[in-house]
């Protein structure tokens, strides 16, 4: 209900108006020209856990423990009667006795008694604490999202720049870049919405695009390993580099070739649990060590050491590559 309507009701039947005022959920005060309280509605007493004794005939700025004793607010209220000004949503954040820290929005409007012309102030107080809290949380969330978007742009930029162009057609460059980009997305997806990534699900998600046709990639079912969220993306990117390398040069470049992904756990002397993940290629073309360190090899080593806090061993056996990535869980 708006103030005009309230005003009309107040002019009409006193009893009916009293009922309306009593059921309004927001605290209401009627103040005299000297800003002392003439009356208060039940919501006022309820909200501020106070009573008539401590409220009626008290100066507005002495209510509670003086939370409304704000020079600026008093000046605004003092203008309402002589100038017919109004106060709209003046924000007061304070520690209220028995109530705690609250953010209140104060609005005030002049009312004139229809019979004797006495002017009073109708003050409404809305508790905006919850709304403010939600707004602050929303701002934090938006800030976090903004940070992630900016980060993702930078990471994408880095991937695009470091994906090799030498000796490649534009098609090849695009496919290699998009493969990495997709692996990043799949790895991030594994931990989206606060989910815990786990083996074998993460490994399956990353190699799935390479399982087209009758390519033979088997991912062990056991043991299920929960991965900290900051380990999932790095491990996913490592697996993707191994897969893309295998389709170009390794076992997955020929029909008979196979890849097995399996892992075991160990506990070191400091009682830290380690994951040892093996990528084993067999029945592929004869394998030779690459002459130069490409982006893929570099990513595997860099990531295993600096991001996973472990190590990667790449063993180019004649019968196929064995990669072992070991890292603390």
């Amino acid at each position, binding site marked *: 209900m708006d103030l005009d309507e309230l005003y009309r009701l107040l002019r009409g039947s006193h009893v009916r108006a009293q009922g309306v005022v009593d059921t309004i959920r927001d605290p209401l005060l009627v103040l005299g020209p000297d800003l002392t309280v003439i009356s208060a509605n039940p919501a006022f007493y309820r909200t501020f856990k106070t009573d008539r004794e401590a409220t009626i005939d008290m100066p507005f700025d002495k209510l509670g423990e003086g939370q409304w004793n704000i020079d600026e607010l008093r000046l605004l209220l003092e203008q309402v009667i002589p100038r017919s000004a109004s106060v709209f949503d003046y924000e007061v954040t304070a520690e209220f006795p028995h109530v705690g820290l609250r953010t209140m929005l104060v609005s005030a409007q002049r009312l004139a008694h229809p019979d004797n012309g006495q002017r009073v102030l109708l003050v409404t107080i809305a508790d905006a604490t919850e709304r403010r809290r939600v707004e602050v949380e929303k701002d934090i969330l938006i800030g976090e999202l903004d*940070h992630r978007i*900016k*980060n993702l*742009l*930078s*990471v994408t*930029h*880095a*991937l695009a*720049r*470091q994906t090799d162009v030498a000796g490649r057609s534009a098609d090849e460059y695009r496919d290699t870049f998009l493969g990495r980009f997709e692996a*990043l997305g799949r790895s991030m997806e594994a931990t989206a919405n606060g989910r815990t990534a786990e083996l074998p699900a993460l490994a399956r998600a990353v190699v799935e695009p390479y399982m087209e046709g009758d390519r033979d990639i088997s991912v062990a079912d056991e043991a299920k390993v929960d991965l900290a969220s*900051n380990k999932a993306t*790095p491990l996913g*990117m490592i697996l993707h580099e191994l897969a893309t390398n295998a389709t170009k040069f390794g076992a997955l470049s020929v029909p008979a070739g196979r890849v097995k992904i399996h892992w075991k756990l160990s506990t070191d002397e400091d009682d830290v649990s380690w994951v040892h993940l093996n990528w084993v290629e067999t029945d592929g073309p004869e394998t030779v060590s690459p002459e130069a360190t490409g*982006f893929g090899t*570099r*990513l595997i080593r*860099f*990531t295993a050491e*600096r*991001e996973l806090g472990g190590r990667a061993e790449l063993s180019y056996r004649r019968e196929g590559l064995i990669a072992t990535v070991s890292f603390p869980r």
Partner: protein
Amino acid sequence: MHDETNKPGAGGSLSVFVVEDEFLIAMDVEMMLEQNGHAVIATAPSVENALRLLEEARPDVALLDMNLRGELVFPVAERLRSLNIPFVLASAYGTVDFEGGEAVADAENIGKPINERRLLDALRRAVGQG
């Protein structure tokens, strides 16, 4: 006359300390610097890790990301200052966006995504070779 030989990495290679929480960006920076004849002597993904590495490491210059998984890089900046090691920021944010930003207020921010030319120029300027 100016004695250029007293300056770190005079006319050539700089040893760079990289503080960056996104491993793919850290790797990109390392590759860019190496491709231009510089060396990354260490990379750290967190404030704690960076401070530990700085107990030993004495780079010519550092490159700092501002926001490391919700943690601000300022303690690292202060440590670098006390060691007289110049640094450059690589952050998508302005320094004034954060409380305590004085620690990095007069450092150059090359922004993100990182542009190679801008990175190299800023590192040179930071060590007084700009």
